[in-house]
Structures are given as structure tokens and as C-alpha cells.
């Protein structure tokens, strides 16, 4: 009886959570006539998959996709390299000021983005980086606190003997990091890469503030262009929204194992 209740409740809620996705996908492939039909159609008579292509071509989405790709790829590489280096430094060395610096690092996670947004805009403006992709890429090369924390927790689980053995063989600290720890860290790096990819791909406020010209827009800004109150092109919005959701969803399915088991727990337990 109790089990039945739990599973019916879960099923109902799961439908509630997934329905909006299905609804969006449906609106992308419906014919115009069915789109405005009331009561709504839950299984269209014809599936117009060509809507995706026509919507894509309504605005320069190839450019937006290119910009998003540049940002996501370059910033993810930077994030992986810098966070793992810093995490290794905090996890494997004893040095004056380490604990204070680490607490400082943790504290930076509490700072709201709104506080940094204005001075960062002025800083990038001064550097001449406004309306370029640099503000969306360069900071990622300087290690995000949350990812450093996650990777450090992971490195702490790797036995110290491995490092010591390598040191006996004459390996330098960087060798130990590069040849031993980096390969061992792969599951944690997949996690960091996934989270960072999602953040960069989904980011709206960063591009909104730092980019002006349409030629520099990322996909999220491109999609927001459709939100013209006078003439909302539902098919186009639904198509692009669907397409925008695909990469994070696909990535999520591949990295799911790591997300569910690894990060969340270690990140919170501290």
C-alpha cells in the first residue's frame, strides 16, 4: 500500500517534470494549424521536423553556434587545467598560509555574482574586452573555487604512497601531477568538465552584459532575440529551445553516473 503510494506519487511528479520538455518539442514539430488548436494536440497528425532547419535559418544561428562553441571549448580546457593544478597544490603540499588560503577560496563561493558583475564590466571595458568573447573565456583559466574544492576532495582519496614511490624514482612534482594524478583524476575531471560545459553553454547574464553585436552573440542570446513581445514566433522559439537543450541533456546522460554518485556528496560533506 505504502509502496504503491510512493510509486504513484513519483510517477505523477515525473510526468509533471518532463511534460514541459515534451510540450516544447511538440510545439516545435507541430503544423501551424495544430499549434493554435484548443484543446491542444498531444500527438500531432504530421511531424514537421523541417521546422528545426527553417527556424535555425531565421537568424544567424551558425554564427551564434560558432561563438558558443569557441567559448565552451576554450573555457572548459582552461578550467580543467587550472582547477586540477590548484587542487593538486592544495591537496599535496604543506606550505605557509595554505589553510588560510583554502578558507579564502571556499569563502569566494559565497560572493554573489551581482557584486562582481559591475566592477568586472568596468575592468573588461578598460581592457577593451567588451564585445569580445574574452570575458567569457579568460576567467575560466584561473580556476573556479567550487571545482578546485571538488578535485581536491578527490585527490585526497589517492594514497600518498603513489606520490612517494614516484618521487623515489626521481619524478618532479609536476611529473607526479601530470603523469600520475591527472590520469587518476579522470572521473572527477569528467564531472568538472560536464558542470563547466553546462555553465558555459547555458550562461545568459555573462554574454548579455559583455557582448553587444549580434555577430558576437552566443546561442542563449540568439534564442532570447526571439522574445519579441509583438510577434512571438512559437515554432522558432520551440525549435531553438529544443536544440539548445540537446547538448546539456546528452552530456548529462553520459556523465550521469559521475554526477549522481561522486560530486554532490563529497562537495557538501567537506
Amino acid at each position, binding site marked *: 500500500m505504502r509502496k504503491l503510494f510512493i510509486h504513484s506519487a513519483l510517477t505523477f511528479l515525473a510526468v509533471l517534470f518532463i511534460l514541459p520538455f515534451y510540450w516544447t518539442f511538440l510545439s516545435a514539430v507541430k503544423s501551424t494549424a495544430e499549434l493554435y488548436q484548443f484543446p491542444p494536440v498531444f500527438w500531432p497528425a504530421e511531424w514537421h521536423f523541417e521546422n528545426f532547419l527553417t527556424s535555425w535559418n531565421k537568424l544567424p544561428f551558425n554564427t551564434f553556434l560558432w561563438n558558443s562553441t569557441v567559448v565552451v571549448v576554450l573555457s572548459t580546457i582552461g578550467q580543467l587545467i587550472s582547477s586540477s593544478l590548484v587542487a593538486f597544490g592544495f591537496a599535496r603540499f604543506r606550505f605557509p598560509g595554505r589553510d588560510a588560503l583554502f578558507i579564502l577560496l571556499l569563502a569566494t563561493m559565497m560572493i554573489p555574482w551581482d557584486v562582481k558583475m559591475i566592477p568586472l564590466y568596468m575592468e573588461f571595458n578598460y581592457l577593451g574586452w567588451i564585445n569580445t568573447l574574452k570575458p567569457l573565456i579568460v576567467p575560466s583559466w584561473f580556476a573556479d573555487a567550487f571545482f578546485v574544492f571538488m578535485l581536491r576532495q578527490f585527490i585526497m582519496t589517492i594514497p600518498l604512497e603513489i606520490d612517494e614511490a614516484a618521487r623515489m624514482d626521481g619524478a618532479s612534482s609536476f611529473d607526479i601531477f601530470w603523469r600520475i594524478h591527472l590520469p587518476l583524476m579522470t572521473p572527477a575531471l569528467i564531472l568538472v568538465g560536464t558542470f563547466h560545459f553546462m555553465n558555459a553553454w547555458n550562461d545568459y547574464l555573462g554574454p548579455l552584459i559583455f557582448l553587444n553585436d549580434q555577430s558576437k552573440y552566443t546561442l542563449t542570446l540568439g534564442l*532570447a532575440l526571439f522574445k519579441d513581445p509583438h510577434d512571438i514566433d512559437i515554432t522558432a522559439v520551440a525549435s531553438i529551445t529544443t536544440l539548445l537543450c540537446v547538448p546539456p541533456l546528452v552530456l548529462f546522460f553520459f556523465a550521469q553516473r559521475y554526477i549522481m554518485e561522486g560530486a554532490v556528496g563529497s562537495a557538501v560533506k567537506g
Partner: protein
Amino acid sequence: MAAMQAGKRRARFSITPYLFISPWALGFLFFTLGPLVFSLTMSFYDWPVVGERTFVGLDNYRTMLMDDPMFWESLGITSRFALIYVPFNIVLSFLLALLLHHARFGVGFFRTAFYLPSVISGVALVMIWNWIYSSEYGLLNYMLSFAGIGPVNWLGDKNLAVVAIIVASLWGLGGTMLILLTGLKGIPRELYEAATVSGVPGWAQMLFITLPMLGPMLVFTFITSIIAAFQQLTIALLLTKGGPQNATYFFAMYIYDNAFKFYEMGYAAAGSWIMFLIVLALSMLVMRWSAAWSYYEGELKSKDGGHDA
């Protein structure tokens, strides 16, 4: 090499560890500490993006608190939003986590379903909900029509627009749910078994085992939810644009407008510092409150131990 190793062993000064953490240290200087100091400085100036800046002392703060009704209005809207969003986010996440924890099959599927909205962009989320709320062909009004509730103008009504944003935000509670689920899994089964044997009823087990054991995680989600509530910007910016009649003009939007619509960088910086202080104060309050609570937890544990023996 040997020298470096010895240096590490005897804790003699070595440059190597600092080289490893230098990316973060430099980033901290240029993208966190620098901006923070800069922003604090800016908040004491009349500082346009281009043109002359003038030192005005505390004038920005004074004007904001005394002569700017939009400040109080937006702060009020954000506070009311937080007051509803934060408890709902935690309670619903907790209930979902609890259901998942007790489910026998399909756990992976359900977990994924609840987490999915959290992996998509805020813009996509807004586009999806914009549509669910549409008064003419929206999914929500269609569902409500079965219950005999007439077409509701979700985004056009002063009171309902805030509700609409809360619901849309709650759709993304997957992250919080996952954290609490991990917490639930970490509670030793023996505690429940011992309690059941001692005849402790289910509700008391929930109150005296589950909630205290989940304490640190609840505090963590409490704080992150508060920060999220105060930072609420994307959804309001795109879904309602602050309307109707400023009903969803959040505090973050007020700061954003001051900076990037009116180009009053100094004034906006002052606003952002007020937000920072509020968030900081609330977080401290939560932590202090939870410290009292953990003491209670420790006390309880010793009592439990006595019971067992």
C-alpha cells in the same frame, strides 16, 4: 629535486606549491578581490561608464535608503519571493528526496526526471514556461480547464506573476534534491532499526533521526537557496521584464538596471554591496541558528545511546 623534497618534508620554504596554486591566486586578485575593492570604491563615487567621476562619500547609500522608492520596492519583492521560494525549495526537494529514498524500482529514472530541468539554460527554461503560462494556448490553463477554472492571465496579473516565477524557479530544484538524497543515503540504517525496535513511531524517527542527521546538508541548501533567491534575475528579466506594474521587479534587476540601463555604475555598486551584506547576514544567521541546532543533535545522540544500552 632532492632539495625540493626535503623542503617539503621539513616545511622549509619552497616555491613549488605556490606555483601550483598560482592560477587561483592570480584569478582571485584579478577577478574577485580586485573587483570587490573596485566596486566598494565605486560605491562612494558618482561614476558613469564614460566621463568625469566625482567622490560623493556615502551619498549613494543615503539616496538609496532615503529617497529611492524603487530600492525599497524591489527589496520588498525579492524578500517576499525569498520568503516563499526558499522554504518551498527545501521542503519540496526534501519530500522528493524522501520519496526517491523509499522507492523500490525506477529510482534512476525518477531521479533523472527530476534533475533534467536543472541541466538546461535559464533562457530555455523561460521560453518553456512562457508558453505554459500563455493565457490563450498555454498548457496550464488547459489543465485547469478540466477543474472548471477559467482562463487565468498568469503573467499579466500583479499577484500571479510572482507565483508564476516561483513555480518556474522551483522546476529547477533538482540540484537541491540530489544533495538531500545523498544526505539521506548517508544516514546509518542501524539508527532506524534501533528506533523501530525501541518502538519509536515513524514521525518521531523523522523528527529525531532524519532531520538532525540531515542538518549540515539542510543548512547548506538553505544558504544556497537564499543566495539563489536574491540573485534571481534571468527569469524575471526574460519572463516578465519586471512587470506587470513592477510586480516582479526584483532587487537584482534594480541593480542591473542602474548599471546597464542608466549607467550609474557607482549607484549600482552601492546596491550590490547592500545585497552582499544582506546575503552575508542571512547566511550567518542560518549558521548560528544551526549551531544551536547541532548542539541539540549531540545531546540527542547521547540520549539515544543511553536508550540502546
